[in-house]
């Protein structure tokens, strides 16, 4: 499940086509749909973060919603209390989460699989309570949360706030994905994967497990934190109960459905997480989560590689058949 | 009818094939030795009999097919396996280990019979009685081997599979265990299939032997014939 080291021209063309589609789309759909697409991009960034940690580096996190929350509250507090412009909150949210993730990653170094899952689960469950704590209320707004205003397009561009935010998020997502892809296919990425698959051998070959594991935690938290900040701006609101353990579980679902250790999987997963609850909740309020649960279990039995993995298998089969036909023709 | 009949047995660890068409049989009441060097496939053969590895081919015990069956089922049909490494329940007491040997018994009198059998085991292996309340993990290697054999005997098996019982043990202890094996074989008609690297001791105990090399049987015969075989003498008996 290693990311390819070089991107071939077909893939590049495909991505270009997708981007073109993404740029044209917002002008043909309603504002609310544009908002939903923005959220898909937000989740994609968050899922890429989570996937780095769990898919590529093998550290299970059931509490990534906490970093999303930290990023979201960073943006909200900076915009509401200090009047910081929205785009400046992103690097701050990223930096705060990078440090927070790295710090959490340090004790996590000694925790393997199950125990790390336990600890991160605890983090995810505690987050709403921490956010509601009266001692922080002057900052966090307590139970009521904080409202923020969606920014207008700069330089008088002829875009309404929803569309502007969409393009802004698209640009950030593009940047984050390119950076992430670069990271994962380079030396750091290889170290991360080695630690996941053969930690003892990796250490024996000179990889500093402790450093890379904490670094991965930090970078993963940074990604999810930036996503949280973007999400807060898009939703225009942060409140403790939106960041419960169920947010962390949503991210887990997105990662599993999209595909572990897959960059494109982050996008598939994000589409799933954004639209399936919408459709499902028309059936009943409980349906989205029941569907999540069923998908989690079924995917583990049937499609452990997620949608991305499934597509990869299909593509490999198609290539084999294509090559077989070609060789038969030339024989 | 042979007690154990193995035909064209192939065994696999994942994609690697370790046994390449083994065929042999055992009569009831006999003691048979499987000899061979490290990695020849002797332990794998015993594991295959118990359904612990993937196999192809036929294995029959008392006329009934046992290939493809789960370990628990094979065991309940009357085969007791003393694995290499002994398989002791280290965190349980010595006596609990013995009691577990009688786990699959049925019948109203099983409690009394189990107690009587445990007494019999202490008769064979007095050291176990001394340590009966001790955690099995604190027993010495020899004691654990005796415990493993005793636990297998608690199953009241028709066939016992012993994997390297002499491994890491002092000669006197090994002799004691082998003596008990001979006694059980003669007095209780328990057939024994013995895997041993110590060919000399094995050939002394057994009446038949097979020589296995790289997953195939290369020689078979009575233990005297095997002992007198020049090649065997040079390679495995050292003279």
């Amino acid at each position, binding site marked *: 499940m290693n990311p390819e080291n070089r991107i071939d021209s077909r893939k590049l063309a495909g991505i270009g086509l997708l981007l073109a589609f993404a740029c044209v789309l917002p002008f043909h759909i309603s504002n609310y749909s544009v908002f939903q697409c923005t959220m898909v991009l937000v989740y994609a960034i968050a899922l890429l973060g989570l996937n780095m940690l769990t898919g590529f580096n093998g550290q299970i996190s059931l509490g990534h919603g906490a970093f999303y929350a930290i990023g979201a509250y960073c943006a909200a507090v900076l915009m509401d209390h200090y009047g910081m412009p929205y785009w400046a909150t992103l690097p701050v949210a990223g930096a705060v989460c990078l440090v927070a993730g790295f710090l959490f990653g340090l004790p996590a170094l000694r925790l393997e699989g199950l125990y790390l*899952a336990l600890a991160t689960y605890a983090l995810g469950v505690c987050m709403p309570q921490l956010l509601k704590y009266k001692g922080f209320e002057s900052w966090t707004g307590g139970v009521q949360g904080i409202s923020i205003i969606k920014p207008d397009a700069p330089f008088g561009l002829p875009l309404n706030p929803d569309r502007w935010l969409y393009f802004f998020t698209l640009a950030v997502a593009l940047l984050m994905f390119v950076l992430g892809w670069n990271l994962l296919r380079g030396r750091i990425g290889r170290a991360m994967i080695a630690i996941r698959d053969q930690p003892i051998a990796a250490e024996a070959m000179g990889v500093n497990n402790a450093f890379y594991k904490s670094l991965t935690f930090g970078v993963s938290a940074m990604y999810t934190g930036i996503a949280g900040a973007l999400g807060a701006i898009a939703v225009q609101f942060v409140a403790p109960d939106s960041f419960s353990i169920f947010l962390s579980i949503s991210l887990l679902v997105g990662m599993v459905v999209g595909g572990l250790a897959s960059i494109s999987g982050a996008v598939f997963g994000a589409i799933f997480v954004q639209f399936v609850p919408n459709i499902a909740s028309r059936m009943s309020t*409980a349906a989205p*989560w*029941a569907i999540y649960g069923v998908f989690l279990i079924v995917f583990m039995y049937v499609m452990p590689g997620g949608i991305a993995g499934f597509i990869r298998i299909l593509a490999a089969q198609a290539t084999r058949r294509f090559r077989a036909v070609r060789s038969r023709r030339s024989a | 009818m042979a007690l154990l009949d193995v035909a064209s047995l192939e065994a696999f660890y994942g994609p690697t094939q370790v046994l390449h068409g083994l065929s042999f049989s055992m009569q009831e009441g006999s003691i048979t030795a499987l000899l061979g060097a490290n990695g020849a496939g002797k332990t794998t053969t015993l594991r295959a009999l118990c359904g612990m590895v993937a196999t192809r081919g036929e294995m029959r015990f008392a006329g009934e097919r046992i290939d493809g069956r789960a370990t628990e089922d094979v065991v309940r049909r009357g085969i007791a396996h003393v694995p290499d490494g002994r398989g002791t329940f280290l965190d349980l007491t010595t006596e609990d280990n013995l009691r577990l040997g009688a786990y699959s018994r049925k019948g109203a009198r099983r409690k009394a019979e189990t107690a009587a059998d445990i007494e019999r085991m202490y008769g064979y292996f007095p050291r176990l009685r001394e340590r009966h309340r001790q955690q099995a993990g604190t027993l010495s290697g020899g004691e654990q081997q005796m415990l493993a054999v005793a636990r297998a005997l608690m199953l009241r098996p028709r066939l016992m599979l012993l994997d390297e019982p002499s491994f890491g043990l002092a000669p006197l202890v090994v002799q004691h265990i082998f003596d008990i094996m001979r006694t059980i074989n003669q007095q209780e008609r328990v057939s024994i299939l013995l895997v041993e690297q110590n060919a000399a001791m094995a050939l002394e105990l057994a009446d038949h032997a097979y020589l296995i090399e790289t997953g195939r049987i290369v020689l078979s015969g009575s233990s005297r014939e095997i002992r007198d075989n020049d090649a065997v003498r040079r390679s495995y008996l050292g003279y």
Partner: protein
Amino acid sequence: MSIDDLLAQILSGLATGSIYASVALALVMIYQATHLVNFAQGELAMFSTYLAWSMIDAGMPYWGAFFATVGISFVAGMLIERVIVRPVENSPVLAVVIVFIGLLVILNSLAGWIFTYTIKTFPSPFPSEPVLGQHYVSAHQLGSTAITLAVLLLLYVFFRFSPLGLAMRAAAQNPASSRLVGIRVGWMLALGWGLAAAVGSIAGMMIAPVVFLDPNMMSGILLYAFAAALVGGIDSPGGAVFGGFLVGVLENLVGAAIGSELKLTVALVLIVGVLVVRPSGLFGKVHVTRV
């Protein structure tokens, strides 16, 4: 804080602690057999409690519903192990954790769908008046502690003295050797899950009168049970029980000291603290991994 208050906090802490001890024990039972932590343990207990509630709501007397629920939970636990957990038994840890989370989520949403998210009251079989002329603990707290202690004692006797209990312990410690003495290890696992579910259902029914019944009732309690199991030693049943009582008392004392709003965070700190400082807990075994 006066001695009177301290005593009240400690005693009521022991009462809640008995609930944590039960859930922690259920977690440890499954951990011992499978080296897995059942993240869905809380939701299982919650769902069982809802089953009891619907039986009582339909007119069944309390104890009838109680025992019926325990029985149904036992069977359900066994079924879940055989049907849902078994296919991923030998999969990597991540896969199993994901399946457990899936189970958690399904149970939670099923409960919300069938029973709605409105908070319900759950009856207590114990009188509401104070007993024994004291005011530290209510009759319910005393009664539920007595019941959970009785359950724990029963389990201890079962595992220590019965042949089946011995076989289950053996299957948990050494599945390969257990097969060699004819133990059907798969069924032992299922039995373990059944017992864990049954114990969890009792814990749920004992805590529901206090915290009221809603689909998210058990999530905080599960966290405390995790902390308790870790503090006591994740592979030590006795440790889990001790840990449960300890965590119950700690929760109350810390709550009295710094306010009750950060109680869950205390659990988080405990969990991370134990895992970092002494992962085997107070009574667990220290595991040496051979490279």
